[in-house]
């Protein structure tokens, strides 16, 4: 790893300001950044650490909930009240990575981490995400890659918490040199078509401060489910988070989200439309699950992921509409 200076800062704003300077980069838990630096993907002279900035690791369940960006995944997992109100988020956090990593990794870092695509992660491959000319996965080794939006860069977004937050219609609050803003989680991510070299719209000098989750509608239920080859430390083949509210036997509102299938977490709007206003039935669930994967454009080695995604949506819906 290239030699660097660690600059601890006292506020997020200072972190934003310092990290915007040339040769500098921001670090919270540092899990993803140190990995990238070891691979030589990042070679900063200065790492600006917000790890010890006080006051940003709180978990207020509300609802609405407000979770500081520096709250660790381990704390989201073990927070009983959060688990009761927002179970999909607690499960997404608790199922990620390993116990050691969950102790270090923060919610903000989990949202802002970079994809695990094996071409992106090796310096030898000058891929689109690094500003290069080609996506090596498109016609390469792509069994773990995207099945939607595969035209520019076929990586999948690695954040499990983002999948849950999308189902909860969360907002991302940021602070930066240009002031504060609150971004809908859906607008937070940037698709490769727009810019393959980044995954979110954080500007230079902008730092995630907190995530805000609206109060769940009365009668709503939610769930996060993932499918992994290995239970011990593995990335999901597919994951889904679903939130529905049911009133007098009719689904009022449904949010169906798919993760590990596209360059940014994906809302399955087709499925949501089928569910909204309908009465739950096995047939409805099957149709919604089918709609969730409609329009998939799988690659040479990952057609099975379409089926896996459909099965996981079906299982998630069955669980919460039972």
């Amino acid at each position: 790893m290239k030699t660097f200076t660690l600059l601890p800062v006292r506020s997020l704003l200072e972190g934003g300001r310092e990290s915007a300077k040339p040769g500098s980069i921001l670090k919270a838990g540092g899990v993803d950044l140190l990995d990238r630096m070891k691979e030589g993907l990042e070679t900063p002279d200065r790492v600006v650490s917000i790890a010890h900035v006080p006051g940003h690791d709180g978990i207020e369940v509300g609802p609405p909930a407000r979770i500081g960006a520096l709250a660790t995944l381990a704390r989201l997992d073990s927070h009983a009240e959060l688990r009761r109100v927002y179970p999909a988020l607690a499960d997404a956090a608790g199922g990620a990575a390993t116990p050691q990593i969950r102790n270090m990794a923060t919610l903000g870092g989990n949202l802002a981490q970079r994809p695990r695509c094996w071409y992106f992660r090796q310096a030898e491959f000058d891929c689109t995400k690094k500003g290069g000319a080609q996506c090596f996965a498109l016609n390469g080794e792509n069994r773990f890659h995207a099945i939607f939006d595969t035209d520019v860069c076929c990586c999948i977004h690695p954040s499990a918490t983002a999948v849950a937050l999308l189902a909860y219609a969360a907002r991302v609050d940021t602070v930066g040199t240009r002031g504060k803003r609150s971004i809908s989680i859906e607008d937070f991510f940037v698709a490769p078509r727009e810019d393959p070299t980044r995954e979110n719209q954080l500007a230079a000098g902008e730092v995630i401060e907190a995530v805000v989750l609206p109060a769940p509608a009365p009668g709503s239920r939610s769930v996060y489910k993932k499918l992994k080859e290995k239970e011990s430390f593995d990335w999901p083949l597919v994951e889904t988070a679903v939130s529905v509210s049911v009133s007098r036997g009719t689904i009022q509102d449904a949010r169906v989200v798919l993760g590990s299938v596209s360059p940014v977490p994906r809302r399955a709007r087709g499925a949501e439309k089928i569910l909204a206003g309908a009465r739950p039935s096995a047939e409805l669930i099957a149709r919604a699950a089918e709609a969730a994967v409609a329009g998939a454009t799988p690659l040479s080695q990952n057609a099975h992921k379409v089926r896996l995604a459909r099965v996981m949506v079906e299982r998630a819906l069955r669980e919460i509409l039972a």
Partner: protein
Amino acid sequence: MGKDKLRLGFNGHFEEKEVEIAAGDPTPWDPSQTFSILGARTPRLDARAKATGAARYSIDVRLPGMLYARILRSHDPATVVRSLDLTAARKMPGIRAVLAIAKPGDALRFAGQEVAAVAADTPERALDAISAIRVEYGARPFVVEIDKARADGAPLVFEGKVETKTSAGDAPGAKKALPRKGNVQGPRASDKGNVAEGFGKADAVVEGTYSTQVQTHSALETHGVVARWEGDELTVWASTQGIFSVREELSQTLGVPLSKVNVITEYMGGGFGAKFGAGVEGVTAAKLAKEAGAPVKLFLDRKEEHLAVGNRPSSVQWVKAGATKDGKLTALQLIVHGGGGTNGGTGTSGPLKNVYACDNVKTEEFDVFTNSGPSAAFRAPGHPQGAFALEATMDELAARIGMDPLEFRLKNDPSEVRREEFRIGAEKIGWAGRDARRRVPDNPALRRGVGMGAAIWYNTGGTGPKATVTIHRDGSAEVVHGVQDLGTGARTMVGIVAAEELGLPLEKIAVRIGDTRMPYGPGSGGSTTTPSTAPTIRAAAWQAKKKVAASVASAWGVPEEAVVASAAGFSMNGDAGKRLSWKEACGRLPEEGVSATASRAENHPDAWKRFTAGAQFADVEVDVETGLVRVRKVVAVHDCGLVVNALTAESQVHGGVIQGISYALYENRILDRATGRMVNPNVEQYKIVGAMDVPEIDVTFLPVWDAVNNTHSVGIGEPATVPTAAAVANAVSHAIGARIRSLPITPESVLAALDGKARVAAMPGRETREGGRA
């Protein structure tokens, strides 16, 4: 020399045999014997050091003034070095030595091959310096897929002579010179009886093509050494399973006399077959240390470990088998193409030739060279691959003739030990009720299945090892023996055998191992360590004890034969009054105590010989909607001869089983076809089974008293992993009612099999490719 009449065999199958015992070697233990420590569950002698972090592995060695080295490697699979400029690297701060490993004009044959190396005062500076080395490469055409490498006109991995590496743990025949056409070398062939006639007599014939992936050893301690010169004498702390074979390689490569090279391995973090030689990294470290005039540490990182220092080769195996309708095998045939990268020795015929009895057996084994990292011996070379294809074939043939797969195996298995193991294992796994358990109540997506496989192994150790046992005046004893402990428990095994023979508690024994300045110890490969070492230790202890007895006899003024040694001490035949405790007898020894150095005797040719046998059963659960496989339980029944330490022997079987599960379901070196580079050189996407995925493992040992050596000991490391993947694959097939013919078994391969899309190839040479599957 003399012949002893011994009771040999196993429970319920004992027979008397006359066995010739060499002079200086004790008579093999008798089945009626009671042991004080042998066979018990004995904690490792070094367990405290391991549990407190005090154990010093070679990677932990720190010496005053020690430098850190790094290797520059090629990124591309086939290039020629045009020029190499080390000047800039030499001028960088803290750089103390720079070495060209490749020279201009050299062909580099895989991504990750060594080009140059540096030694610096810090690891960071070494890393900076290798990026300052300027190399011009000329690109050459390459091939990384085994089917493409076999095609006419494929780029040649070796244009001239084939340069392969072989090592102590390779499959038999790996070193033999063979014909070569293009990238295909071979065959190594065997032909018994007449397979055409055999197939003619068969009522049912099945054939299938089975493919397996490349698995890397992935020991947690990577390859590497710390090298130090003192004058013209070289000392190397190596992570190795053969301190003497490392010494040999360093001596030959560097032109230093064997007497001036010392290799030390105090603790070692796993090898699994890949760590017999000094390797490029070991030789490089020694050269850098010489140039710098300071000790050099060179350990690989995880990526280098995956790329360059060994793997279990891939295979494409076409198997054909025939049987009569009453269940007798009539013919077995195998054609295998193995992908060992730039290395050969990729055969898989062991199980097919040796497990089941068949009059007509024909095998042809071809190495297919590709531009990828060289294979190395890996825990039962060729056998997990071969067992996977053979055992699937046995299940298919049994189904074809309408016979239970267990019954079919029992009819064809010539090993009475394994037949007994099959019966024990079948009982434990609940074989009889397996069909009834296929459907899982309340969960229509789940299916359960049970499958089985046979283990075989051959080695029972051999001559060469020497050990010195010294008995001190205070009654304690010291064993010195140049074996290394790669984690198997060899150190403890040495202590237990000495304690048993001397009748001493283990605490009274000091065990010194892991240094080439000690009497020669065997390389730890081929599951030969225990059967080579244990009899040597026992012989040395027995001889040393006889020397104590001789001193007692001399004090009593009686002939040596009149003194009887026992755990309690020494007594005289026919005179109850004459007795001395062990401590008293030792107290009379001279200041230097007594020592005996014994050599490993030859294996007894008239012993109760057999191939080492094992049987494993797997119980799996398959989600038929997602294709996900979970192994619920593995029952492993093994012949380990006479177990020295039940705790460590059981641990070896557990380890073999989990590596087999990991191989069956997860591990896969994936090469990018377009660039020839490995895409998963880590332990994130090179998936190794972990704590959540390990099933219940039920281990049973069937004690076998064979008198091949004086301790009846047999190695267990390799047989324990031979049949696991086969049993898991057969269990998956039982669960889903469809055959999967490639490893690893993944969700997509299970779904494809369920969909009936699995391609059943009838001809050898089916198109296939290494790594990921379509």
